[in-house]
């Protein structure tokens, strides 16, 4: 993702467009809550002659609801009715809009204040315009539903009618412009439906795959089956004879971030035709040095490494070995989880047009257009400013589309077909095999408890993927992983395995794996200590305080953690007693990630080794305000079910002789309606903290909660994903 930087101070500018429509452009700089990194936001608000308001949605919509949420913040402070608002998707333009990525559950914390300031600033200029026009003090005026009102005289005027005067008003200082008090919110905190829902249910073209610029061609690719392998030679004579085939384009240019994705693209008048023509291509790859990697090999090497000393340090406090030697009880266990793909339902695709003047235009389902712009410019050796990126709606992101590989490939093909737009579309096997995978990992956990049952020492030897003493992308874990920072004697060490696979961020990256390891293991520790996991957590959290964060991250507030643990126990009626009903189990998990605190309880039933999740209880703390409660419910249900899928349904990405073999939803199954829990219920713990995001933090706790509930139901402790009683 882009480094976020400030290039200028906040300002607001108003202008009249075409003599009637009043447009506000805001640029704001502020420090995101809990982060030293300042961020910028550009907001375009246009008030049309009919007093309707158009607000540009600047960030990519991947189903997280941001296209609805960000304009809600602006409309609230502008003080217009939601029914007056029309929303348009903005193109990628860092200069105008600041960062536009969809990742890290960052949109809410980055925009909560500046989006509101933009709306409030525009409102202040409209109020000032009315004050001048009527010759009354601005303080005597109020607003509502897109009008300025003067109670004393009973006068009112629409924002549209004020446009000519407002455009000439001095812009307020956005850092000082007064914001509404929470109790006056009319839009924020209300259940708002997705702005694109009506178009989705009508089947209108919205997604990247639906882009259809005139004269468009289609491309399918034959990809090197071994990631990082390179193209040796190919013979396209037979392919070129196939109906509809117009060109064959080798893609060998440059290094796509963290891995070479060599391929041969077949371009023609129909994707079905060019995809079918792939079987006629004769191609040879150089996979030397990469074809020795396999799932089996990783597992064997990891097991050997677990018993050796770590090759790199992550966190050390006191003397863990000495403390374990003195401990009343020592618990040790090995945990493991596999490589996973993202499997967005809309396969990777992109459309690009290389214009006659060398400019490049994209229609792209990308979660991070800013980074893609830089990557593409670098690989093709062109000016980043020569790129236009239209952001389409996205058929699922989950982190896969933070990567630029599919856009770079499309750019390479478009360059070979100047003047004709080309759409590259992966088939499902291409998509599963050429992912930036959630990396596998192995942990040897060791804990010591004292005679009073308190956790006093902890060790983790983490085997992950990396090189040169550093983990690969998304293969790291936090040095501050709880409960490390609160214990006197701790040792987190790492050892690394090499891989040819490209790795990347999967929804709640690192947390979706580490939560399982730590909360699963702490459930074992609690059992050994004669208590239950919530009680052990509360005892270990201790007094309310802020634990120091990783660089550029937010501190861990033990009080907020305590708050959600206590809330979910109350909500679910947690007694801490083991299940006495045969086949029924209950488990708990807590996790802090992406600035959100979540505790969850899972009730499940096991019959003949088959696990059915009956109910999931969630307590969450994302600060003082849930912006769109309807979408919040969607995100929380979706994340929990996604977590259930990762825990129990998805099968590992399997690699042999360097190549990933998973082909489709048969061998990489996704969760279906018949595997969904009957109930997912939630409760909020509202705290006086800035609102934070909800795309990810609900996911991690459910995974260990399931493992812990299976232990409760069956007595079997499952320590590797996917969880299986077979």
């Amino acid at each position, binding site marked *: 993702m882009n480094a976020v930087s400030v290039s200028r101070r906040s300002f607001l500018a108003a202008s009249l467009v075409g003599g009637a429509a009043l447009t506000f452009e805001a640029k704001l700089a502020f420090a995101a809550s809990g982060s030293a990194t300042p961020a910028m936001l550009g907001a375009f608000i246009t008030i049309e002659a009919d007093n309707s308001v158009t607000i540009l949605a600047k960030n990519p*919509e*991947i*189903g*997280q*609801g941001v296209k609805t949420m960000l304009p809600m913040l602006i409309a609230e402070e502008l003080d217009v009715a939601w029914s007056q608002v029309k929303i348009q998707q903005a193109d990628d333009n860092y200069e105008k809009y600041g960062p536009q990525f969809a990742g890290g559950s960052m949109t809410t914390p980055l925009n909560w204040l500046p989006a509101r300031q933009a709306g409030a600033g525009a409102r202040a200029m409209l109020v000032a315009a009315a004050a001048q026009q009527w010759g009354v003090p601005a303080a005597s005026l109020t607003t509502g539903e897109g009008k300025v009102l003067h109670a004393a005289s009973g006068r009112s005027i629409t924002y549209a009618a004020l446009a000519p005067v407002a455009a000439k008003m001095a812009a307020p200082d956005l850092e000082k412009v007064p914001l509404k008090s929470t109790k006056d919110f009319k839009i924020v905190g209300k259940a708002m*439906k*997705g702005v*694109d*829902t*009506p178009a*989705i*249910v*009508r*089947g*209108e*073209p*919205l*997604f990247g*795959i*639906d882009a*259809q610029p005139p004269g468009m061609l*289609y491309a399918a690719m034959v990809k090197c089956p071994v990631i990082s392998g390179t193209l040796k030679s190919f013979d396209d004579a037979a392919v070129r004879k196939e*109906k509809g085939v117009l060109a064959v384009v080798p893609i060998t240019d440059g290094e796509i971030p963290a891995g070479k994705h060599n391929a041969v693209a077949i371009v023609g008048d*129909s*994707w*079905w035709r060019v995809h079918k023509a792939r079987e006629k291509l004769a191609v040879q790859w150089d996979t030397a040095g990469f074809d020795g990697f396999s799932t089996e090999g990783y597992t064997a090497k990891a097991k050997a490494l677990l018993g050796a000393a770590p090759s790199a340090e992550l966190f050390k406090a006191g003397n863990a070995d000495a403390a374990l030697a003195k401990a009343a009880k020592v618990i040790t266990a090995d945990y493991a989880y596999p490589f996973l793909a993202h*499997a*967005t*339902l*809309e*396969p990777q695709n992109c459309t690009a047009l290389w214009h006659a003047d060398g400019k490049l235009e994209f229609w792209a389902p990308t979660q991070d257009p800013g980074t893609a712009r830089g990557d593409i410019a670098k690989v093709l050796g062109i000016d980043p400013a020569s790129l236009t990126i239209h952001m389409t*709606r*996205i*058929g*699922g*992101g*989950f982190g896969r589309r933070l990567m630029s590989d599919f856009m770079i490939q499309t750019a390479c093909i478009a360059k070979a077909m100047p003047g004709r737009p080309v759409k590259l*579309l992966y*088939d*499902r096997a291409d998509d599963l095999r050429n992912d930036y995978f959630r990396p596998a990992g192995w942990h040897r956990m060791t804990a010591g408890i004292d005679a009073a049952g308190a956790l006093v020492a902890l060790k983790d030897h983490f085997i992950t993927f990396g090189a040169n003493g550093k983990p690969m992308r998304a293969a790291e874990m936090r040095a501050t992983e709880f409960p490390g920072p609160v214990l006197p004697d701790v040792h987190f060490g790492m050892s690394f395995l090499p891989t040819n696979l490209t790795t990347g961020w999967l929804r709640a990256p690192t947390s979706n794996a580490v939560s399982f390891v730590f909360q699963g293991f702490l459930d074992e520790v609690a059992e050994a200590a004669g208590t239950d996991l919530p009680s052990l957590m509360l005892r270990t959290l201790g007094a309310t305080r802020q634990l120091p964060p990783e660089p550029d991250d937010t501190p861990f507030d033990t009080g907020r953690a305590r708050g959600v643990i206590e809330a979910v126990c109350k909500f679910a009626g947690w007694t801490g007693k083991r299940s006495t009903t045969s086949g029924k189990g209950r488990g708990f998990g807590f996790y802090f990630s992406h600035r959100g605190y979540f505790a969850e309880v899972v009730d499940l039933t096991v019959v003949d080794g088959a696990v059915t999740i009956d109910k999931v209880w969630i307590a969450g703390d994302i600060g003082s305000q849930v912006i769109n409660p*309807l979408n919040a419910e*969607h*995100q929380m*249900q*979706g994340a929990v*079910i*996604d977590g259930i*899928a990762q825990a129990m349904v998805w099968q590992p990405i399997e690699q042999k002789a360097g190549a990933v073999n998973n082909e*489709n*939803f*048969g061998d990489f199954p*996704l*969760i*279906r*309606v*018949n595997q*969904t829990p009957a109930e*997912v219920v939630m409760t909020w713990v509202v705290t006086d903290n800035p609102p934070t995001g909800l795309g990810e933090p609900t996911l991690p706790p459910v995974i260990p909660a399931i493992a812990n509930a299976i232990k409760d139901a069956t007595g079997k402790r499952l320590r590797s994903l996917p969880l299986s009683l077979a």
Partner: protein
Amino acid sequence: MAISLTVNRKARTVDVEPDKPLLWVLREDLGMPGTKFGCGAGLCGACTVILNGEAVRSCQTALSDAAGKDIVTIEGVTASPVGAKVVEAWTDLDVPQCGYCQAGQIMSATAMLTANSKPTADEVTAGMAGNICRCATYLRIQKAIAQASKAIAGGAA
């Protein structure tokens, strides 16, 4: 050879290979991209359309097998009273997240409710198990089908 078919009550003719899947005929030749490509193997249901009253995977249906038949896609689903109620319930409950699978979900739900307007909860999960939603909107899909089922009964009464 030109092949004729009826799509959303309109006669259409296409002159492409007869083994071309209906999915790609709709998307590429008839300019109807509402029907989605997800897996190309009949495993995800994103490409579901209604063919002579039955929900089928259009990625697995050759154009020649659709010749002369009556096809309903997401673009025309509200023309039937059941389809209209399904879409209404979907909108009312704001079912979609990313929205990519929803055309297929709506087509499957419409075919199911057309054949059986009062499915039990088990019939709903069985009837919808062929449609994957990667965002996991399943709880709302089940609710929306129950709501549509009620609305259909209300409309008939």
